[in-house]
Every structure is written in C-alpha cells, then in structure tokens.
C-alpha cells in the first residue's frame, strides 16, 4: 500500500494509480506542459483544477528533496512548493516502484526553451540572466549549496519588465549555516558547465536566437554573479569624511531589492578610516513593503512598480501627511482593484494581477505620450485589454513550448526528452548492455566478501 508523506495533503491525490510506473500513467490524469531535461521520469498530473509535477526518484533522494524544498519555503526563497512524497509503491506483481515526489506546478511560469528562442530581444536575455544570478545569490546567501544549477532546474516568471527565477530541483542541494567561497565556487563551476550545455542544446535544436553565443552567455552569468555577490557581501573602506557612503551602500542594496539587516561598521582609533561590510541582507525589500501595506503578494519588481504608483497616488491626492497604510488601502480599492475588475474574467489566465497592472501602466504611459494628454486609468485598461491582452497566449499554464518547432512533433507530448517523431531509429547492438544484464544486484546491499576475496586472490 502506498504511503503519503505530506505536510499539506491533497486528498484528491490518494486515488491516483500509484501502482503504475509513472511513465505508463493513463493520459486522463496528465497535462502536457513544457519542462526541462530530467534524469528521472517527470509528468504533470491534474486533479480537479490543481496541477502538480510528479517525479519518480529513489527514496532517499525523494525525501531529501522534499525536506529541502520545505526549508527553502520556510526561509522564503523562490522555489517550487513541495506537496508530498508517495513511498512504498508496488506494481501489480508486487514488485517495488520508486517513490514519487510531488510539487505544485508554478503558475504563470515560462519555459526557458521559448524564452531564448529566435526573435528574442537582447535586453530580454540580459534580464533572464540577471534573474538567474539573483536566484543563485539568494540561495547562496541563505546557505544553500545547489549542486545542479541549470536551465532545466529553473523556472522564470514575469516580474514587471524583468523576470523572477525559481528553483525547481533541489535533488543535489545541501543546506549549510554559511557557504564557504569553495562551496560557492563549486556551484558556479557546475553552473558554467550545465548552462553551457543547455545553451548549446538550444542552439543544436535551432531554438537559440542566432545572435546569442553560449560561451558569452555563460561568462556573463559568472561575471554578474561575482559583481552582485561583492555588492551584497563585500567590505568597503573609506575616509572618515565620507560618512555618506554608508547610506549610499544601503541605498544601493535597497535598489537591488535587498534589505540590510546587519551592517558591520568599524573605525580606526581616530575615526579617520571607516570599513563597512553588510553581514546580513534579505531579499524582497520592495515586495515585503508592499505586502505590509496592501497584502498583495508580488514579485520584487512588480512591487517596485506598484509602490511607485502608490507614491504618485499619494502625491496626486495631496495625502503626503496621512498615514501611509491608510493611503495604501485607498489606492488598493480605488486604483488597483478597479483595473483588475475591468479585465474580463476569461482573460485572467493570461497574466497575474500585479503583472496586468504593470502592463496597463506601461500602456497608459505610451498612450498618453502618443495622444499628448493624461489618459485615465480605466480607459487605459479597456484599451490595453482590446489592443494587447486579447492577443496574448495564456500563461497560467503556458503551453507554447509544445508548439512544433520547424513543424516537428514530439514523440511523446508528456515527455519532451524523448525527442521528435522524425528521429526514430534502430538501436545498434551493444555488447556492454548484455554484460550489464548479467550483473545481479546484491540483495539488500549486502557486502559479498567471498567475491571480494576470490577477486583479490586472482
């Protein structure tokens, strides 16, 4: 009988066909969503209106990853939400099957295969790399050694004009109090090799914009990471007459989206030299502030945009001296919700509300410039819905990577790693496979000391 390990169980998962290997599940339970390359069998399963990612993997890794994802959620790191692990599975003949790790499908996430494809603008690529770098740095700040940074293990979501990156695979991860430079270097080395491979693969599949070069992309990730890490953690020494540099550093970190929880400041005896070093920095400076004021849960740059609009609203309505949270409430009901309500409900799966709001603001700005007048927000919303939103694809569960590339079709839409239909071929004879088939797994991991002795005696 399968056993469910879960903190927040979804009872609709219980009747699913756990005694069937995941690769053979009936398609009625599956949704074909784009995803990266995996060593394991991965499928998206649908129960009711919820979509989960299921990965078949050996027990100690499944439990390890489940717990790590929980830890990452607890410390508020962008990662997919773990739902549970199904262990003790057996097939119809009573043979054991590997456990399945279940995570929640990240809504509005975008598959990387479509993000780097032809026609992509260089700024977009630059922003995707930035999102990746911020994710790696945030994980490193919280003591997480990833061990497997790769495009397949990252999901992107829109974040105002930028992107936010999420971790989707923690199989090789380790949680430490603090990472050493060596551990970070290890992660970067893995990242270099994996990302280079990922980009070369996109190139080989004709899915990488021609102007992009894999090696340059990988070098950019590494140099931007180093830059960001130095800004987040590096020490800075200046003369005692330049005290403004302390505030300057904090502002720069805020602008990058980080709060400084602890800044170490040292002075020499006559205070002529000052050395500062951030000791504890927390990501989410703007999203935390917006959450506190309005209860809206957004990505960092969306929060920045919404807060700017809130500040403008405050100035325009002459409420600079009114308590900020009161103004924020008014802005939420009179401005933000008005825009969201003006979007027909059948179009809501195209963008998340904060992203919609951001795009409406952009639309209004261009419209106002063009017409040389202040376009009212509700009018702008209608225009945006009519001119832009209707034509956009649904992104709540993005399927665009399933569109055939060069009119080629996947062998199995539920498993892109099986490649395209036109590539089927016979397997050549492989004597190694025959030899491997002769190797019997030792029962229960016993050490066969007799075999070892006879080998040593030879």
């Amino acid at each position, binding site marked *: 009988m399968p056993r469910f390990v879960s903190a927040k169980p979804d009872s609709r998962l219980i009747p699913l066909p756990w005694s069937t290997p995941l690769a053979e599940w009936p398609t009625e339970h599956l949704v074909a969503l784009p995803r990266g*390359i*995996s*060593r*394991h069998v991965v499928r998206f399963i649908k129960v009711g209106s919820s979509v989960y990612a299921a990965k078949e993997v*050996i027990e100690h*890794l499944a439990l390890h990853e489940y717990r790590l994802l929980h830890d990452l959620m607890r410390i508020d790191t962008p990662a997919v939400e773990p739902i549970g692990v199904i262990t003790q599975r057996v097939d119809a003949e009573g043979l054991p099957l*590997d456990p399945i790790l279940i995570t929640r499908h990240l809504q509005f996430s975008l598959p990387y295969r479509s993000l780097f494809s032809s026609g992509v603008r260089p700024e977009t690529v630059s922003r995707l790399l930035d999102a990746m770098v911020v994710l790696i740095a945030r994980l490193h700040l919280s003591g997480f050694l990833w*061990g*497997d940074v790769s495009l*397949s293990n990252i999901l992107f979501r829109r974040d105002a004009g930028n992107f936010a990156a999420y971790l989707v695979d923690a*199989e*090789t991860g380790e949680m430490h*109090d*603090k990472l*050493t*430079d*060596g*551990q970070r*270097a*290890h992660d970067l*080395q*893995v990242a*270099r*090799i*994996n990302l*280079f*491979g*990922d980009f*070369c*693969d*996109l190139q*080989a*599949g004709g*899915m990488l914009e021609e102007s992009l070069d894999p090696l340059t992309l990988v070098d950019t990730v590494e140099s931007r990471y180093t830059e960001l890490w130095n800004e987040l953690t590096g020490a800075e020494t200046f003369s005692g007459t330049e005290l403004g540099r302390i505030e300057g550093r904090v502002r720069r970190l805020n602008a990058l989206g980080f709060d400084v929880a602890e800044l170490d400041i040292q002075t020499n005896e006559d205070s002529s030299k000052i050395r500062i070093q951030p000791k504890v920095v927390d990501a989410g400076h703007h999203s935390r502030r917006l959450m506190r004021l309005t209860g809206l849960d957004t990505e960092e740059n969306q929060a920045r945009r919404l807060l700017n609009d809130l500040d403008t609203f405050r100035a325009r309505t002459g409420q600079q001296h009114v308590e900020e949270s009161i103004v924020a409430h008014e802005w939420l009901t009179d401005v933000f919700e008005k825009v969201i309500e003006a979007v027909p409900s059948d179009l809501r799966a195209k963008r998340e509300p904060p992203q919609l709001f951001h795009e409406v603001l952009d639309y209004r700005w261009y419209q106002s410039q063009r017409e040389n007048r202040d376009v009212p927000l509700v009018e702008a919303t209608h225009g945006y819905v009519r001119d832009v939103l209707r034509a956009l694809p649904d992104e709540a569960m993005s399927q665009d990577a399933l569109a055939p590339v060069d009119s080629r079709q996947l062998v199995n839409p539920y498993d*892109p*790693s*099986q*490649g395209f239909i036109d*590539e*089927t*071929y016979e397997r*050549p*004879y*492989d*004597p*190694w*496979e025959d*030899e*491997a088939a002769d*190797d019997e*797994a*030792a029962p229960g*991991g*016993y*050490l*066969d*000391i007799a075999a*070892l*002795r006879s080998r*040593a005696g030879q």
Partner: protein
Amino acid sequence: MATVSFRDATRIYPGSDHPAVDKLNLEIGDGEFMVLVGPSGCGKSTSLRMLAGLEEVNAGHIFIGDRDVTDLPPKDRDIAMVFQNYALYPHMTVADNMGFALKMQNVPKAERNERVLEAAKLLGLEDFLTRKPKALSGGQRQRVAMGRAIVRSPQVFLMDEPLSNLDAKLRVSTRTQIAALQTRLGVTTVYVTHDQVEAMTMGDRVAVMKDGILQQVDTPLKLYDQPANLFVAGFIGSPAMNLMAGKVTEGGVKIGDYLVPVSREVLAKAKGEETLTLGIRPEAFIVSDSGIGVEVAVVEELGADAFVYGTLAGLEDNEKLTAQQIVARISSRRPPARGEVIRLGVDAEHIHVFSNATQERLSN
C-alpha cells in the same frame, strides 16, 4: 598521470571550532583507485573539494605529482570532476554530448573529435556517436556521462557520489563498469561515497573518515579483516560486525554466560581496563555445543546461507527490546526456529579485540 598526496591538509570552516578535515595525510599512487568513505559530515567531500581547488586549504599541502597545487586555481590542476548529476542534451548528438566541455575550453575541433572518438572506443559507444541520446538506455547514458570526463584526459579523476541517483540494479552494473574502465585507463582516481559496499567493491584502497579524521586507509580486505578501531569495525561490512562489550576475566572476556577466550598477550595490552569490546563478523560464527548463547528472533534465508538475528540468551523480556542485536550467518541446512536458544562459537583468529578506553584494536 600522477600521484596525489595530502600532507597535513586541514580545512576549518569559518565560524566552526573544529576542522572539517583535520591534518589529512594520504598518499595515492599513480593509477590507483582510491575511495574516500564515511558517514555524512566526515570530511570526505571536503577533502575532494580541497583537491579540486574548490575549498581553501588552511594548513598543510596538497601535491599532484611533484607539483604543490595547494594554492593553484582549479583550472590549473589538470583534474576532471565527475558529478552525481548529469543531463544528456536531447538535441545534441552523443559526440557533442561528450565533447561540449572541450568546446567551452576552446579546444580546436579536430582535436575535440579525436578525443571524443578515443573515449567512445573505450566506452563501446562508437556506433552511437552521430545519434541523439533519447534512445539510449540508462546504462548507456551513464557511459556518455563518463565519456565527458574521459575526453578531458586529466591527470586525476575526481568522482563525487556519481552513482547516488541510480536505482539499485543500474548502480551495481555501473559500479563494475567504472571500476573496469578505471583499470583500463590507468588514471589516478579519487572517488567519494557514503556507501561502504560501493567503496569496498570498487577501490584498490579505501580511506575511512570520521569527524574530519582519517581512521584507516587500506585495501578492502585488510579493512575487513583487521579494522584499526571500533569505528572502522562497525562501519565496514554489511551486515555489520557484532561488537559486544564484556568484562575482562582470567583467560578472556565474558559475553553473557560464556567466557570468550582471549590470549594473554592481547589482554596485557588492555592495561587494566575492566571491559573490552569483542568484534565478531556474522559469518565467523559457527553453531556449536559451546559458545555465546543467543535467543533467535528472526531467521532470513538467503540461498545456501541464513542470517540469524537475535539477542543474548537469558535476558528479561523488557531487556530484549533495547538489547543489542546479534547477527550470525550460518548454513541454512538446519536453520534454528524462532525463540530457540543456540550457542555460537568462533575460532580464536576471527575474534577482534578493541580497547574501550582508546577504541583502538588490541588483537593482531
């Protein structure tokens, strides 16, 4: 090709009061397959990362060949690291999947092709080179991943738990393939694992670590037959060695109601300790008329042999729950029944004697 030598190599993590790796001294021969094994947190992965140049060495030195690499950056060390995670890229051919890291290092195309072909021959993958990896079996994929390291033709291979994400069957066959391949290539290899069965079946020699300290480095059989201390004795072997503490008595050590004979010379080394620990491998036990009394709890038959699990005879019911388990591997021709009390004898040469004070081995 090269030797590797750790000389008093030490790594202390910032903020930690004890070293993650403490004065490691380890000489690895040219072409040797050395396995570092130990429980999580023992320092094995840190040692590997120190050798790779990913972890700072706070004291001591590391040599590859005659070269002191202690302060060299990773790229100048001429090593290839094989990680536990590997992905095969669906749009790239098997050849490109093996050679892409060389491309990153700007190795010219002709040389790249040559090195890939050479590695493919070694791995029996020649016929697959122009194909895409989607139709490869699990074992073939594993070989392509090995090929990635081989094409770099390094002086030393470093492998960090490369089999940990494979299922049991694939793990066993890949284990054999890696070991065979290493012998053929003759490249010095340092392999890290937490699995002692893997360590024992793969390594020319095995270094057992615990709490950052090297406990013993020896051939697998020597580790098995002459563990240097209680930790190695308990760690190596599956099922594990029975470790039973008993009172020192004239002529031996008392286990339950039976006096296990221990030679005068060995007892003399104990220098007045009142109790000693005896170690006996499950297969060293023989069912006989006199010996340690064991009440049988479970019998597991395994072909010609049977594993008997039990506790010392004569315990009260409430003591049995917390009592140490004793495991014996005996012939399954006449397996004992559950609840039966049997006597297990053992030849003197198969008794390992350990000091409880120093944990060290006293017997020869």
